[in-house]
């Protein structure tokens, strides 16, 4: 099962200001990796980049043997219109989009899969409930059920345990471990550092700059965490051009690398 993500000197950002700066590395197929870092560290930005919602300012993301559509993505505080008149069953059945498409019917077997996914997240009996009546935790369980149906090789979760109680996060984490056991690649941003250290094998510590990436115990050292905390969060509107910035592909003269020798990372000071 291929499913590696390769970041090559990747810089992502908004208005030319980097939010993820010069990230290089490889997400191995089947890895269960946490992305940890302070608010504004670029975790969500990185995920948007992986999903292709955001074009790299420089560098690249290569997806080895799969397309963006093979990635299942759970955004942070999903922008779901909770007042929309749709029930839990239909919402979860959206996960079947790749099989059902525009017109495909939902077969008896597919219905059973939806039921099984709902059972796996503990929402049996909620099929006919309108999504607006769910609590925050139930909502997150429902979205996990939809992820289950998507049957994706790569699963990207942005802060899946925010505003979710301990029981729910334990149940949802069990699903993540199940995915990991099935050889899927799972990338998730998390805030609870002790939890990550104890439960997630690999960690990328991000603070706009990648601070460290490797086995969680080696990454989440006090020294690294302090370094991450010290990296500033705010955009510096006076930031100089980044000297490490390679000219965009296809253009030989980027204009800034050569003409501003000696600039260092003023924008990341």
């Amino acid at each position, binding site marked *: 099962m291929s499913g590696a993500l390769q970041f090559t000197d990747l810089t992502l950002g908004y208005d030319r200001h980097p939010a993820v700066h010069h990230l290089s590395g490889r997400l191995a197929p089947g890895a269960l990796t946490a992305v940890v870092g302070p608010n504004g560290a670029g975790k969500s930005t990185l995920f948007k980049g992986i999903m292709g919602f955001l074009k790299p300012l420089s560098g690249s993301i290569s997806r080895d043997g799969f397309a*963006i559509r093979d990635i299942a*993505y759970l955004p942070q505080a999903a*922008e*779901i219109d909770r007042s929309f*008149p749709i029930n839990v069953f239909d919402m979860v059945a959206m996960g079947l*989009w790749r099989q059902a498409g525009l017109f495909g019917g939902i077969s008896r077997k597919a219905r059973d899969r939806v039921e099984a996914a709902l059972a796996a997240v503990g929402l049996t009996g909620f099929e006919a409930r309108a*999504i607006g009546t769910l609590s925050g935790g139930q909502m997150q369980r429902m979205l996990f059920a*939809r992820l289950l149906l998507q049957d994706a090789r790569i699963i990207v979760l942005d802060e899946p345990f925010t505003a979710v109680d301990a029981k729910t996060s334990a149940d949802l984490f069990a699903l993540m471990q199940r995915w990991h056991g099935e050889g899927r690649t799972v990338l998730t941003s998390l805030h609870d550092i002790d939890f990550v250290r104890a439960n997630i094998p690999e960690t990328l510590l991000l603070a706009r700059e990648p601070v460290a990436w490797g086995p969680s115990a080696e990454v989440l050292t006090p020294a690294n965490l302090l370094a991450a905390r010290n990296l500033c969060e705010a955009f510096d509107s006076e930031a100089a051009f980044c000297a490490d910035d390679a000219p965009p592909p296809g253009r030989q003269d980027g204009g800034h690398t050569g003409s501003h020798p000696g600039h260092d990372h003023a924008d990341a000071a």
Partner: protein
Amino acid sequence: MVSMVHDLLIAPFADFAFMRRALIGVTALALGACPIGVFLMLRRMSLVGDAMAHAILPGAAIGFLLSGMSLFAMTAGGLVAGIVVAALAGLVARTTQLREDASLATFYLLSLALGVAIVSMKGTNIDLLHVLFGSVLALDDPTLLLIAINATVTLLVLALIYRPLVMECVDPHFVRSVSGAGAPTHLAFLALVVVNLVSGFHALGTLLAVGIMMLPAAIGRFWASDITGIVVVATVAGIVSGYAGLLLSFHAGMPSGPAVILVAGGFYILSLLFGPVGGLVRQIFPGRHLEA
């Protein structure tokens, strides 16, 4: 007794061809416009429909200026103007500080003023009234055919994009992550809005065209709690409003367009009060709460 009911409810249509044509016109209009209205409402775009209805006016007016009350010229002008304004408003919202609703408001006020000015340049006050309030009692064959074709196209396209449209309404990020259908769906939907407003423009005029779209949709919201139910209720409400409005107009000598919209408005107020889904009476007397 039976003959009285017959006189009241059926005779106007049995006796007068123009009433039959009007009934067919508003029914076809409701079949296409009401489902579109439901989606406009659920996407919080109710006012967008209103703005686009006004935007159609200058286009239709230019058609009128060039070739008088010609169906083709006014329809083509209206379609072009509607699509241009929808695109411009989107562009302004994306490239400037102005939000989409504010940019639509500026465009439609401008369009309304421009349209009225153009019609007045050539036409009479009667022409102006015709453009503003439509002429459901004077639908000729080509216009009737146009409305029927528009309704057919609307239902077919809606069937085609129904699934991604619903998904796009609930969870646009999800659609974006699983398929590229989001943007084409949105564009097709906007095109359907314009097509139906042009239909409505011929029957009910530029000011009331959006009424047959939005009022039934709002009615539907009070009677059903899933999207399919809302669409069905809205369409039935639109057709019944058309029928009852024509009768009201016939018996009370009211202009027909406003009569249709007034009846729909009456149903809306009833629904607001007595609708089982969030109606006021239900809110005041919710019944005893359940055990779990």
